[in-house]
């Protein structure tokens, strides 16, 4: 999709719009009570039980679905990091099933 770049005369006006921010005098802060959205999306397809059961407590599925395709070795490294650095309590059998799922659905080969 192409956009036309406006001729210079049309643009010069816009550049002047940006005003320096001025810090207002903040005297008090107001309490907040807000709900932050979560996600109920699950990993789809066969072999997804292990990844659904082990991974979604800490992060939503889109964290993984938005990753690039990676080699099995790279996915193994990611799963190892989750277990060793971030202390995800994943059994060795589940870790293998998770790497299998990722290598199959988001692998490079």
């Amino acid at each position, binding site marked *: *999709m*192409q*956009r*036309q*770049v*406006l*001729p*210079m005369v049309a*643009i*010069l006006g816009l*550049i002047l*719009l*940006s*005003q*320096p*921010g*001025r*810090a*207002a005098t*903040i*005297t*008090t*802060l*107001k*309490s*907040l*009570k*807000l*709900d*932050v*959205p*979560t*996600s*109920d*999306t699950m990993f*789809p397809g066969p072999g997804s039980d292990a990844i659904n059961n082990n991974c979604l*407590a*800490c*992060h*939503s*599925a*889109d*964290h993984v*679905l*938005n*990753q*690039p*395709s*990676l080699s099995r070795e*790279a996915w193994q*490294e*990611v799963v190892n990091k989750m277990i060793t*650095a*971030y*202390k*995800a*309590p994943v059994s060795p059998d589940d870790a293998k099933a998770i790497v299998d799922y990722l290598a199959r659905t988001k692998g490079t080969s």
Partner: protein
Amino acid sequence: MQDHDVQPSGLTRRRVLGGMGIAGLALMSSPALAQETVDLHVPGGPSTRMLTTSYPQKGRMILQRSSPPWLETPFEVFDKGVFTPNDQHYVSWHWANFPGDIDVNKFQLTVRGQVNQALSLSLNDILQGFPRFDIAAVNQCAGASRIYAEPRVAGAQWANGAMSNALWTGVRLKDVLDRAGVKPGAIAVRFGGLDEPVMPDAPKFLKSLSIDHARDGEVMIAFGMNGEQLPLLNGFPLRLVVPGWCGVYWIKMLNDIEVLDQPDTNYWTATGYRVPDTPHNTVKPGATGFKMVPVTGNAPRSFITNIRNGDSVPAGTPASARGIAFGGDCGVARVDLSIDGGKSWQPTKLGADQGTYGFRQWQTAFTLSARGAHTLMVRCTNTKNEAQPDFRTWNPAGYLFNTIEATHVLAA
């Protein structure tokens, strides 16, 4: 600036972003359920992201991860001015456990460790008890633009919107430390917020600065952002602002300051966020044997904001290019534009200086005389005389990418 204090009642209910992954994409053809998306134009994909307006106090944002939230600033926002609106300042959390409910009368900031007098400060103590100052500073994630790494690497797949600039208002960390009285032998200061890991054994998110850096008079405990209190997702009520350094140090919901007389051994300081100790922190993919060092300061960057890849530019007629730049951990000395793919460069005119660590606008006129494809490039040189590299930088974790940006246009 909008008033964020009044929330529509719908936000008080728990909301679940349903079917945002594969299911959402499958439904896009249905007009009733159409979801606005953005194409990040990344080879190899996945390139499409949802745009969301579902997060409290946040406007239209690129949804990189639902929980814990990674919300990216849509790139067109950067064309509107040097200060990013609070409701489109990017959002990044490491752990999902952080409160949505903060009572300003109960919040306490603790200062402890190697100090003569441990402190427990109320928000009123912070707002009324210390001199305040303002500073413009870009908050940029260390992994900004990771999606453009070649070869690709795992991690938050940020495009160019994991950076935002604000005019921060707060008190000097130095003044707060002086109130507590730093003991001789202190070497570092460690910062923590209200966020907690989901798994009890996981490392709490903490970062440290050297005692000298912490006391440099620029590091801020911020309670104001562009003249308003901080949005919850940007760290309300208090956030550490470390001008010139990557966002990972800018601890959100800051409630604990610990002065240390030993090196900080926690995971996030001692192990995480590492780059090769090489020029431009760059190595060849697959290379080994280099020393790794912590991510610290930002590197210079610049962007054209009014012309995007694939745009058409009138041939033979002067056109205007403009954008933003930042020096990284110092100011912007110059920004140059190339209209011939980097063979020659012409200086641009810098906009008003709003502060060493903030975005600086630049603009210039250029003429593409020949019809056809052209490549525009923009290059920032900072006040330390460090220029953006003209080759693709790469490191294993995809940190501190700052290669010169190229914009491909068609002169017609």
